[in-house]
């Protein structure tokens, strides 16, 4: 598996796209999706919600367990991926593409987001 260079990564295994007009897309990494197994239910933050970096903003339920979804940055949710709500398996089949989770207008971001190479090393450790 390879982590796209164009993204940044959190220790909770979320990815964050480059921003366009202050808005970035958030998803979970392939590493995280593989660890979860088949995702069967996604509870995503709602448009208008304010999410806080490092805090839970939803949950992903898989066959074996439920996992919190953490916000990698602080900001206002401007879109949630209805395709994932309808078909949570997108998180497994295309975690970096069609399986994105929500878009956030960034108000603040932590200084410990990782590059692709740093994240790859992080998950190898």
């Amino acid at each position, binding site marked *: 598996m390879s982590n796209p260079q164009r993204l940044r990564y959190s220790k909770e295994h979320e990815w964050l796209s480059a921003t366009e007009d202050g808005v970035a897309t958030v998803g979970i990494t392939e590493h995280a999706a*593989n*660890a979860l*197994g*088949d995702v*069967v*239910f996604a*509870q995503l933050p709602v448009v208008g919600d304010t999410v806080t970096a490092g805090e839970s903003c939803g949950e992903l*339920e898989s*066959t*074996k*367990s*439920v996992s919190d979804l953490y916000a990698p940055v602080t900001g206002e949710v401007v879109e949630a991926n209805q395709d994932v709500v309808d078909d949570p*398996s997108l998180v*497994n089949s295309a975690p970096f593409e069609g399986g994105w989770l929500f878009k956030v207008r960034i108000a603040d971001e932590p200084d410990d987001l990782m590059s692709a190479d740093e994240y790859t090393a992080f998950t190898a450790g």
Partner: protein
Amino acid sequence: MSNTPPRHTALDTLHRSLGATMTDFAGWDMPLRYASERDEHNAVRTRAGLFDLSHMGEITVTGPQAVDLLNYALVGNIGSVGTGRARYTMICRADGGILDDLIVYRLQDEQFMVVANAGNAQVVLDALTERAAGFDAEVRDDREAYALLAVQGPESPGILKSVTDADLDGLKYYAGLPGTVAGVPALIARTGYTGEDGFELFVAPEHAEQLWRALTDAGAPVGLVPCGLSCRDTLRLEAGMPLYGHELTTALTPFDAGLGRVVKFDKTSHADDFVGGEALRGAAERAEAAPPRKLVGLIAEGRRVPRAGMSVVADGEVVGEVTSGAPSPTLGKPIAMAYVDVAHAAPGTPGVGVDIRGTHEPYEVVALPFYKRQK
């Protein structure tokens, strides 16, 4: 839990080469899944799946009084098991609490193989050894003697037929016979834990890889895939089969678990003829007069998944506890088994829910199993 390093089956290297996600299960490093557990589940329901179950604990009991020992040590009537047949049974404490659920195979007139759950194998071995005192019978730890592979699913008879001359048509459900499979000596049993037709193959560990590869080759054209413990759990849950540590514990008797039928009283001429017998007579009477909580099925109306330990609720009151829960690939909805107060245990009882992290999610009460194969 201890810090003992995990044990590995004879197929460990093979699992890793297949890219399996491994998990600790009862002290064993076992395949959880190879790819998608839902795809593995569906393969077993519609085609076939291949499992490594070498963590299961085999105990051999032999001798002129092997039957007497097993009748004394277990709750079932082992004397009524014919040679070449198998029986689902339980071993209980003197107070009737369940130590483990077991399958006992009668391999010869005076030779039995007891198969225990991995997590309970030592407990069962110790109990059988202790209970063997005074019987002319030997209890032998054969956990290292066997690897166990299972082929499960509607295509499994055809797959197995292509690699053995053994008379599979004559091998009924819950029967076992020695034979040769893919050139390897095996005990071929028509048993499983998936709700499908299928076979369990007990072989020497050094033969496990050869057998695995032969079954993979024979099964691939009809859609057999390697399967991990994750789908084994959802398969057995759909089939309404109990899992020790979830539906079965030392705090419950077989009657509490709705499995009183496995207990056979008066199987010999002695009055107090088996360990737990006296307590279980009381449990049987209580189950008849004032039944305790009942094991039921729950089907979610929503999409949030119930998990073991969550409360079953009705009118704001706790009326039961979930023992197993998972998204059901066959039903397309979350399902659970739960012990529920009798007042709320009837199928269709309105207003029953599960407290999922503070939210009362609505659930339909149903009779078990959730899934029964068409024969």
